């Protein structure tokens, strides 16, 4: 039942310019739009530990002016033709995109090339975006219930390493950063040899190649990319931490170190996350939420990154349920998986869900472009997008039990309790 279908292949052309810019062209004529995506291979893990948050602050700078495009004019240009544009920063990469009606491909390329070539940011605009980022941090983390859960888990699992902080970073570090660091960062990382340009949508390939050569061809290559990556030491004991804050219910998070993108166990861990806590029929939903009624919600997932990864379980306690009882129940589910492993039926369900999600993703130019970018930047292998489903399907129930045993050990877990103020 699970093996009866194959996905239509994602076709693409890949080449690079003499300055090192990698280009991937994926044509699809379903709708007269084109998605233009640039990934720079720099994220928060490339930041020095006393300048956390800078890669993300820099992402904001990319909208604050370049030689021919003034502050906020990037949005003006794209909005003025009915397009959308945005950007995001992760631990491993910073991406910029615009989706535009097909006839404005040249505009989107011009905008991206102009800010790859040079930035022109004033002190005033730098300070303005520093304020904006501080509000972003409050809105998303400090003033959000459970907002510090993710950042604390990163510290516990990866403390002392380059993955020990999140992209939002420490506001005191950003206050201490002078304007000139913006130019330095641009010179170091925002160079064609550290970028991938992806077009997905309806365009003429000859014209696209011509426009790309015109706009990006003479941007000088930068130096070799220097990276200071501090790997995390293995966890040799269980780490425990408690946060008390303005939250309605206690919550328990259990985190484990897992694997980087491209590791042979990546897909087994993804399927394991799905079986354990990825939907209404998952073990956590059925056992912890439904049968035992210990949790309002409970889920788990694997989150691989370029050089490391984590497997996370999170549950929010039901009214009146103690955090110890909830944690104990979570460990029982982990233990069952580690000793008995999941059933073939559970694996088949997880495979069908994975296939459906992949098929849904194929409907959007943006999601296909993101998949290509990820496989290109982290593995230099964009063709992997067409092997993903087979990778998942090669996983067996024995693999699942093995990875549960290997990665989900209580002796190398990080356990975080989040308690309401005044809880006892």
């Amino acid at each position, binding site marked *: 039942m699970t093996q009866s279908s194959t996905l239509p292949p994602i076709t693409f052309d890949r080449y690079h310019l003499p300055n090192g810019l990698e280009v991937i062209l994926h044509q699809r004529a379903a709708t007269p*739009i084109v998605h233009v995506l640039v990934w720079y291979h720099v994220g928060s893990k490339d930041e020095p530990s006393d300048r956390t948050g800078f890669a993300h602050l820099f992402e904001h700078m990319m909208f604050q002016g370049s030689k*021919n495009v003034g502050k906020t004019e990037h949005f003006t240009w794209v909005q003025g033709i*009915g397009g959308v544009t945005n950007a995001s920063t992760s631990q491993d990469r910073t991406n910029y995109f615009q989706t535009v009606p097909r006839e404005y491909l040249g*505009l989107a390329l011009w905008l991206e090339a102009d800010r790859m070539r040079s930035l022109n940011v004033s002190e005033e605009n730098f300070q303005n975006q520093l304020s904006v980022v*501080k509000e972003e941090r409050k809105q998303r983390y400090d*003033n959000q219930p459970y907002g510090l859960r993710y950042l604390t888990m990163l510290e516990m699992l990866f403390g002392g390493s380059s993955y020990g902080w999140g992209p939002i970073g420490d506001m005191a570090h950003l206050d201490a950063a002078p304007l000139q660091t913006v130019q330095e960062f641009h010179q170091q990382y925002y160079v064609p040899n550290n970028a991938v340009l992806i077009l997905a949508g309806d365009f003429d390939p000859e014209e696209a190649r011509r426009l790309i050569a015109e706009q990006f061809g003479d941007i000088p290559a930068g130096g070799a990319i220097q990276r200071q990556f501090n790997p995390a030491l293995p966890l040799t004991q269980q780490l425990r931490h408690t946060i008390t804050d303005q939250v309605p219910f206690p919550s328990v998070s259990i985190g484990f170190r897992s694997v980087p993108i491209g590791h042979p166990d990546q897909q087994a861990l993804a399927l394991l996350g799905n079986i354990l806590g990825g939907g209404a*029929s998952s073990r956590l939903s059925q056992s912890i939420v439904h049968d035992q009624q210990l949790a309002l919600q409970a889920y788990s997932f694997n989150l691989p990154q370029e050089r490391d990864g984590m497997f996370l379980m999170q549950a929010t306690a039901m009214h009146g349920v103690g955090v110890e009882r909830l944690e104990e129940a979570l460990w029982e589910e982990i233990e069952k998986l580690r000793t008995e492993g999941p059933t073939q039926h559970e694996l088949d369900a997880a495979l069908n869900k994975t296939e*459906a999600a992949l*098929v849904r993703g194929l*409907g959007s130019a943006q999601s296909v472009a993101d998949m290509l970018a990820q496989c290109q930047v982290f593995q230099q292998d964009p063709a992997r997008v067409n092997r993903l489903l087979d990778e998942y399907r090669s996983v067996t129930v024995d693999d699942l039990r093995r990875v549960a045993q290997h990665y989900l050990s209580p002796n190398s877990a990080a356990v975080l309790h989040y308690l309401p103020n005044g809880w006892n």
Partner: protein
Amino acid sequence: MISNINVSHRTEPLDRSRPPEPGRASRAGFPPFAQLQLRNGVPLFIVENHGQAYVSLQLVLRSGSRSDGQLPGLATFTSELLLSGAGDRTMQQIADDVDYLGAVLDAGAGRDEITVRLGVLTRFLPQALAIMADAVLRPTFPSDELDRERRQSIAALKQNQSDPSYLAAVEFRRQLYRGTPYGTEIEGTEESLKKIRRQDCVQFHQQHFTAGNAFFVAAGDVNPEALLAMLNEHFGEWEGAAIEEAPFAEPEATATPRVVIVHRPGSVQSALRVGALGISRNHPDYVPLAIVNTLLGGYFNSRINHNLREVNGFTYGARSSVDAPLHIGTVSVTTSVRAEVTASALREIFKELREIATYPVTEEELTMVKNYVVGSQALQIETPGQVASFVKAIALYGLPANYFDSFPDQVRLLDVEILLQVAARWFQPDRMVVIVAGDATAIQEELKELGPVTVVDEQGILSVEMPT
């Protein structure tokens, strides 16, 4: 000499101060959709698209939280219980069977509609449809599942109440819609959820889940005849008339500005909502109001986001919106700002409201917003699911079938005078209520300049003792 030929082929250096000229304009027309009906008359709208082997099917009922009556949350509660037992399936079996197919099946209520949504790989559609039919037509509402769902819903409500933006949104609707069917939250209150009995769900289901109250929207990899046959098999015998709705009690407009602070001690940000009653989706002002809203606060370079974020750095983002449901809607400005600048941010918001309601927008802004709205239509119809949501709006709000086809032309006809008229009508600063979810102690004194200040707690209950 020969080398000269090569030289003569070199073009002028590229002018990089301007973008390349655009290509030939493409016009993405709104995709065609078909309208069929089941043998019992239930309409079926189909957006056929075979790009992916995936089908989205929505069943929409023309009832929602506005039909809750004395039990706020009943429509949501009943809808969510559809998947907790149906036909001879238990909740576990439904969850297991749906997940095994890799499908997504859920049900939920809005103010004006209840939607049961199925998303499934084409090859599993028949099995998934059988489960969906049981859930819609034969829910069993088991008592133990009902109690479990009640505990879950109350806990979820408490969790929402710890989010400042949610608190501001709830208080906003409470202030504007008090005493009307839109005055309560779709998820209800702890008090109302505790009162709902099994019989209430059974009755609500009998009354509102009728063939005469329903339509389907399908999108994706479907063959219309085959889908119609399948739906007839499962839903063809479904009966029941359309629902006679009680007249909608219109809310009273605010006479004077007022400020309500939802006190959240220790809040490092204030979640703001400034707004007033607006219009229904069918109101003739809808298109011009949506357009003027876009340039006021509907996109990134809008006046409000530019002012509050790019000039003042008060916030990560600020926007305005037009909420236009079946009955009377609202206009509002929404943002979260650091607590110290709450009053300053509100002053800027009111400045922008006065500006848009008093002076015409520039021709440049008008051109920009027209191009944006017309051009972005192509981006919003990329996937069959996106198209389906427009078709659903046509059916739900009774819009003309060619509504989205003709939308660009309606937009092109607008001029600055029309925009000023609707802005003056709906964005009048002195009609606005101000809601702030934040720490009242720090801000209430300064907010008195905007009107009388009331402080309430997280349930909207007036604080007896004002925090000082």
